[in-house]
């Protein structure tokens, strides 16, 4: 993967995804190694995202790399009217790899085409966020022992969540059975559902969260965003529809793990946090190992 950009989850094959997950496992065992001391990593956040940025910076710093960059567009020359093209052409002189988040879809692909150094996409608008997908795959494999033949429920906003779309598409490689739970207004888009159908995988769609809990190995919760509803009344109808409480987990499988891309608002009550089935904070930590694996392999330090 040396010198390759990671823009979309489909840029890497299933075998390459597995290779990254294996490498991430090695970093989990030994997270502090000074193997990137000779490298400079730039984190260009044209739109703020504290969690993702800190995760990347932690990954880079723990491997000894130096980190430069900006945390939102207002502290860069973008406010002076500089184009993305000029920013990338300039910054690529100062570093060995660029991690970027940008509010426009396609920005990371464009950057990778003009940059002479590799780009890691840390989110381009509503389009792709491949490192989130890889850390989700890592978390699923780690907790279930394998990615194959699992029952995975996705709950909440399945229409707009890019995290859900990318993970559904990635899991289609592993004979997953999907349980799609959402309000009717926020169902999975047909383009994503088609990837499930094309692989002849089983799926169910419902509006009832409690009914799917006993059936699944992974319960992937998402936040329902108020701003997605044109009518505030529609939002009021569904905002409490999918709140996971500890009492609802009594009939769950022993191996069930609850995931969430975070930030959480009200969709998981805090009494779930102490349940050993809650995995969302560990999931966030796994992001550091996955990003270490990506930085090290793209910079060519590990094979």
């Amino acid at each position, binding site marked *: 993967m040396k010198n390759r950009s990671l823009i979309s989850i489909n840029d890497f094959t299933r075998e390459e995804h597995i290779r990254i997950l294996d490498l991430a496992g090695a970093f989990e065992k030994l997270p502090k190694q000074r193997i990137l001391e000779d490298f400079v990593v730039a984190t260009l956040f044209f739109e703020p995202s504290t969690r993702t940025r800190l995760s990347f910076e932690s990954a880079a710093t723990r491997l000894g790399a130096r980190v430069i960059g900006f945390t939102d567009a207002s502290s860069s020359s973008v406010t002076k009217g500089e184009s993305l093209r000029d920013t990338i052409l300039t910054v690529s002189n100062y570093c060995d790899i660029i991690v970027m988040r940008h509010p426009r879809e*396609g*920005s990371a692909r464009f950057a990778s085409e003009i940059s002479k150094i590799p780009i890691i996409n840390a989110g381009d608008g509503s389009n792709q966020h491949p490192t989130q997908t890889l850390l989700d795959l890592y978390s699923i494999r780690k907790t279930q022992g394998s990615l194959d033949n699992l029952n995975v429920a996705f709950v909440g906003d399945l229409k707009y969540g890019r995290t859900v779309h990318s993970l559904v598409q990635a899991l289609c490689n592993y004979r997953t059975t999907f349980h799609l739970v959402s309000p009717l207004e926020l169902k999975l888009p047909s383009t994503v559902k088609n990837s499930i159908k094309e692989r002849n995988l089983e799926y169910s769609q419902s509006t009832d969260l409690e009914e799917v809990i006993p059936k699944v190995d992974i319960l992937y919760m998402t936040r329902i965003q108020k701003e997605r509803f044109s009518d505030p009344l529609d939002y009021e109808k569904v905002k409490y529809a999918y709140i996971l409480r500890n009492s609802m987990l009594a009939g769950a499988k022993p191996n069930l793990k609850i995931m969430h891309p975070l930030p959480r608002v009200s969709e998981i009550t805090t009494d779930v946090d102490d349940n050993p089935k809650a995995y969302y904070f560990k999931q966030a930590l796994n992001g550091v190992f996955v990003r270490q694996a990506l930085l090290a392999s793209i910079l060519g330090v590990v094979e």
Partner: protein
Amino acid sequence: MEKDILRKELKVSAIENGTVIDHVPSGSVFQVIKILNLTEYQNQLLIATNLDSQKMGKKGIIKVSNKFFKSDEINKIALFAPSATLIIIRNFEVIEKKKVEVPDYAENIVKCFNPNCITNNEEISTKFTVIDKIDLKLRCHYCEKITARKNIAFR
């Protein structure tokens, strides 16, 4: 009947050598001219539009003297004029007639319908993969969103 044909002939005079692009939707004639870079064409160029057509109701026709298009060049127009037929003329004789074909890729012809796509916000050529040639669906190389027939706009 013969009189009708004669009248039609007179509307757009024949060319000796070149390409006739027939059955162009009336609304797309000027787009086709632009896509094929004919606005600066130095040879004889005959354009007619809003002609009566049995097949289409109204149609346009473009006759380009001394020009024989490469297929990847001419197939670009299929995105706007899928009904178009090409007639190759040599020595006033029809040598070949064929339909245009929807291409596999479209580079810098179509605008991405997603207003938040980077191609609508920086100076970048658009690139699309045609993922459905019948219903005409184009996937943007950059934002990965799909522009469907009803949203296709010329760049």
